[in-house]
């Protein structure tokens, strides 16, 4: 059971407090309601670039990392197609340091040309290293536009192409900030062994006077249902042939999310799972195989992917996966198989929430 208490500041910042007496550390998590889906199609990669800029100094604080480290804390952040999330972990008695740091960068960034230059280069390097030069790194750069033809999920968070990052100007950065980085476009969650009263007074003190800037009024048209089978074949400098079969499956809060998640476990969680047993152990068509769901908030994907054994043709590999998908569609699974997979899943889930 996850418990929390919630209040909202006058400027629209939602604050949730989760009391946790089991740890001397506190977590300060700020989620901004902006992701790659909010980007202009000609300026992609911006939400992610911005995440980097948030560590380049804010209005009254030159360095984000140093004071946090001095307080015994650490931080990180990530961007995906839906949201941008920042968190700090530090000893609970130094909690206010995180409030001070996070509120100042919500108030205003330093917007120095140097920071833009540095972070732009970091992101360009990341684009090259992780997406272009790493084997299979460009898979989602290829798959997204194959699956999505109108919705902004068609580009990855790193962006469509490097030039979009290279061409980012200070004006772009500023307008992005004031549009999306606002108390009324964010959720602050604090976990730790303290009191609601303390969190209320810290939130009011540090975030209370940041002006509202308007919540993100998102108006994205849903991607129409797919009408035809799609296929893309490319040649790359990778160690083995690989196949990715992707099916659309609806939004995050739909019951299908849970059903699809368990279906993916039946297919590929562990060595006794169907795909592993049939396609790796018995037929020896693949060296690795996995099924998983993407969990996209607006429109999720069910993915089956695997690396082919040497000498196995694309057609044989694809047909073999298809056969397993047909089996699970044509015959209801045994109750025992379902119980087994639910138990495995629950253990993993409960364990995850303990951390």
């Amino acid at each position, binding site marked *: 059971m996850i418990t929390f208490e919630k209040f909202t500041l006058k400027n629209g910042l939602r604050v949730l407090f989760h009391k946790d007496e089991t740890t001397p550390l506190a977590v300060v998590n700020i989620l901004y309601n902006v992701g790659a889906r909010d980007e202009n199609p000609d300026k992609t990669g911006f939400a992610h670039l911005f995440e980097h800029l948030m560590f380049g100094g804010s209005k009254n604080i030159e360095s984000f990392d140093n004071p946090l480290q001095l307080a015994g804390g650490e931080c990180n952040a990530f961007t995906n197609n839906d949201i941008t999330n920042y968190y700090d972990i530090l000893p609970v008695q130094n909690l206010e340091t995180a409030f001070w740091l996070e509120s100042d960068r919500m108030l205003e960034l330093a917007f120095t040309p140097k920071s833009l230059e540095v972070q732009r280069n970091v992101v360009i390097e990341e684009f090259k290293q992780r997406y272009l030069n790493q084997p299979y790194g460009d898979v989602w750069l290829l798959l997204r536009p194959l699956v999505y033809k109108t919705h902004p999920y068609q580009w990855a968070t790193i962006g469509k192409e490097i030039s979009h990052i290279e061409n980012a100007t200070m004006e772009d950065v500023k307008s992005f900030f004031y549009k999306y980085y606002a108390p009324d476009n964010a959720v602050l969650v604090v*976990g730790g062994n303290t009191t609601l009263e303390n969190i209320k007074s810290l939130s009011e003190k540090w975030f209370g006077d940041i002006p509202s800037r308007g919540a993100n009024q998102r108006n994205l048209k849903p991607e129409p249902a797919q009408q035809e089978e799609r296929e893309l074949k490319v040649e790359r400098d990778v160690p083995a042939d690989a196949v990715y079969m992707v099916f659309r499956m609806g939004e995050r809060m739909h019951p299908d999310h849970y059903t699809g998640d368990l279906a993916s476990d039946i297919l590929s969680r562990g060595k006794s799972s169907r795909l592993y047993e049939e396609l790796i152990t018995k037929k020896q068509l693949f060296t690795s195989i996995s099924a998983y769901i993407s969990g996209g908030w607006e429109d999720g994907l069910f993915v089956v992917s695997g690396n082919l054994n040497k000498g196995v043709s694309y057609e044989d590999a694809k047909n073999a996966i298809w056969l397993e*998908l047909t089996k*699970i569609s044509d015959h209801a699974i045994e109750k025992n198989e379902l119980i087994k997979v639910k138990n495995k899943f629950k253990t993993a889930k409960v364990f995850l929430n303990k951390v």
Partner: protein
Amino acid sequence: MNRVMNIAFFEMMDKAGEINDELKKYDAVSAESIQQFCKKTFVKNNLSTLFIKSKNE
């Protein structure tokens, strides 16, 4: 950490009240609903396939 982040995600979706229903929702999944899901999802018209051929082979 995961708990705190989950609270943030659910609140952003305006579903914070449902955060403790996640396990129940998984529990509610039946053999029949899995079959129905697979039947409607795993169809050719809903499939995009990417094949990456190794230059080294």
